């Protein structure tokens, strides 16, 4: 066993358990130190996000199953009863652990398929562990591979490109019309939860100016203050519609707030500059015939929900390509791991054989007293040549041929066969 993973995520644990088992930076450092000082792991890395807490590690060579020890450690470290954790924790070893991490960094294991934040979180966790000296050659190689997978999945597939929420879909559509939003402005009608989501997304995308209009001025002021916008008096359409390129409306109303004639005169006043309207209100806030106006684009809740649905399907159709990248890198990592282990094994075998040869010759040559010193030397040389012939060629092939390394599936078995038995004998 070379790599072990113990953790929980959004699929195996409810939010309250995930909250209790999450690690702050300081806790991650302390946990890594303790795991190594207790001899449970030689290399460690703690990955903790809002959706997962995972401990990756390389156990000492003699350890056969360290997962129960890690589970107990997590239970003690976070003061959570073992029975609470027992159903939530998953254990992965070697190939499965590598594959799990690569899927995580590729966004395939995220709650929101293909989300981009996880790659940054993996990078940060790796950087932190490396700075603390908690990683070694195996985890370094493993996490470099994970970052590579994340980058490739994002550049070679469209797993993370399409917006997956109504707010994000609306803002992306605005970018289809205006390009970057850095020098654009937006007006938000209504100050409810959905408005807040859209405003937050618009701010993330760098919108330059934000105006908030609400029947209750206090709520408008709160939203404007939270996101650095300006409040406009409710109903001042002549001035309010002059500047914004994007209008987001989610007002509770029986009649459309933005009537066609209001938008018509606004478009005329703004010189027909393109206007993108997101109508997120139910009943609808914008006169349906407004979409006929020149350079006006109107999307309501249903339109945006349809887009999100299409995007979800499009993202799901990218999964096989992303999985292909994961598989390719799992293969590469295991091949590297096998080469390191196999070469180490062959070197250990050669050292052991040399020792045995010396002891063997000492015991046997005593019985052959009729041979001269020269004959003894000659026998030693011949035996060395024979042993090298047996062992050097396979060692060279292991170094040079990836296919040979791939075929040897279980290095532990070889080690047991050639080294452990000898130790016992």
């Amino acid at each position, binding site marked *: 066993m070379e790599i072990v993973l113990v953790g929980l995520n959004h699929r195996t644990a409810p939010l309250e358990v995930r909250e209790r088992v999450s690690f702050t930076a300081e806790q991650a450092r302390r946990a890594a130190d303790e795991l190594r000082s207790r001899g449970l792991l030689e290399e460690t890395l703690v990955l903790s996000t809002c959706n997962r807490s995972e401990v990756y590690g390389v156990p000492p060579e003699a350890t056969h199953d360290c997962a129960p020890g890690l589970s107990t450690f997590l239970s003690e470290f976070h003061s959570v009863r073992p029975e609470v954790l027992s159903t939530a924790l998953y254990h992965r070893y070697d190939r499965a652990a590598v594959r799990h991490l690569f899927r995580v960094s590729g966004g395939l294991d995220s709650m929101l398929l293909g989300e981009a934040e996880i790659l940054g979180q993996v990078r940060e966790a790796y950087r932190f562990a490396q700075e603390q000296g908690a990683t070694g050659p195996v985890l370094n190689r493993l996490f470099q591979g994970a970052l590579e997978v994340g980058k490739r999945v994002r*550049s*070679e597939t*469209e797993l993370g*490109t*399409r917006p997956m929420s109504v707010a994000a879909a609306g803002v*992306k*559509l605005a*970018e*289809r*019309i*205006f*390009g970057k939003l850095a020098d654009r402005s937006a007006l938000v009608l209504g100050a409810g939860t959905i408005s807040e989501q859209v405003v937050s997304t618009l701010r993330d995308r760098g919108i330059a100016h934000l105006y908030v209009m609400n029947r209750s001025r206090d709520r408008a002021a709160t939203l404007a203050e939270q996101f650095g916008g300006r409040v406009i008096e409710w109903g001042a359409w002549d001035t309010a519609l002059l500047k914004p390129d994007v209008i987001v409306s989610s007002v509770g109303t029986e009649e459309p707030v933005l009537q066609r004639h209001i938008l018509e005169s606004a478009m*005329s006043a703004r*010189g*027909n*500059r*393109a206007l993108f309207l997101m109508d997120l209100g139910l009943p609808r806030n914008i006169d349906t015939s407004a*979409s006929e106006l*020149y*350079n006006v*684009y109107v*999307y309501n809740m249903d*339109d945006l929900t*349809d*887009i999100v649905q*299409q995007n979800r399907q*499009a993202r799901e159709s990218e999964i096989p390509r992303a999985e292909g990248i994961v598989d390719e890198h799992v293969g590469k990592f295991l091949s590297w791991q096998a080469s390191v282990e196999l070469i180490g094994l062959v070197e250990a075998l050669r050292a052991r054989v040399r020792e045995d040869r010396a002891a063997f010759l000492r015991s046997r040559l005593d019985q052959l007293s009729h041979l001269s010193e020269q004959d003894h030397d000659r026998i030693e040389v011949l035996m060395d040549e024979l042993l090298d012939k047996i062992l050097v060629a396979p060692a060279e092939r292991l170094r040079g041929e990836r296919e040979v390394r791939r075929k040897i599936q279980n290095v532990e078995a070889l080690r047991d066969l050639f080294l452990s038995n000898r130790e016992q004998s």
Partner: protein
Amino acid sequence: MLHLFLILTIFAYCLSLVSYLRFLNTGLVVSGRIASGLLAFGLVTHYFALLERSRGLHTVPYHDLYGSMSLFGWLLALTYLVLEFYHRQRSVGAFVLPFVLAFFLAANLAPADRLSPPPARGPMFAFHVTLSILAYSGFALSCVLSLIFLVENRLLRNHKLGNMVWRLPSLELLERMSQSSVLIGLVSIAIGTVLGFIWVDRLTGQYWYYDPKYVVTLFVLLLYVAYLRLARTASWRGPRASRLCIFNFVVVILSFTVVNLYLSHSHRYF
């Protein structure tokens, strides 16, 4: 040698088109890079194909229909590649490459010109023709970009996004790209026309003699100036300006074909 360059050019443009289509279809960044690389390679081999032909004829490569069309394709590809780098936008390539390829192939399939070439000598003439054809390629590119604008605008207004809309440039960028290429065209045609007058003066001793091509070129110039001006005004910005741009290019095609072949005395192929 000429054949080698022709084959290499066809291969480079075809593979570039396939890569641009793949990029548009899948969004694979690596496909886009390959497409741009192949287009750049095609431009180099196309240049040498023109150079070889020029050496063979002992004259400029565009005194006949072949050369004129081939140079048009080359300059179209070059203008596009410059815009692609400038605006960092590759998804339009799939729509431009078919035109480049079509002009290159048509030029090679065109019958050999049996008319005696005009007294096409001297750098002034070379610049006059090259800049005129560069202008046409700039206008052609703006036409393609305006067409994409209209299609994307329609898809966005009708809420029929599909996969492609997410990969096409934004409407705002398409407008800017179109205006950039019109600007290239206008500057080229203005300088090219002035050089043409100077060349005629040196050749014949008179600045002006009547040729319908002059009138049409002036008309084209005015139309594109009007486009650039109107595209920023209230009632024309957006789809209307794009339609005007497409109309302008129809006039350019008429100037390039009907006027050249049947009306003009001295502008047969450019």
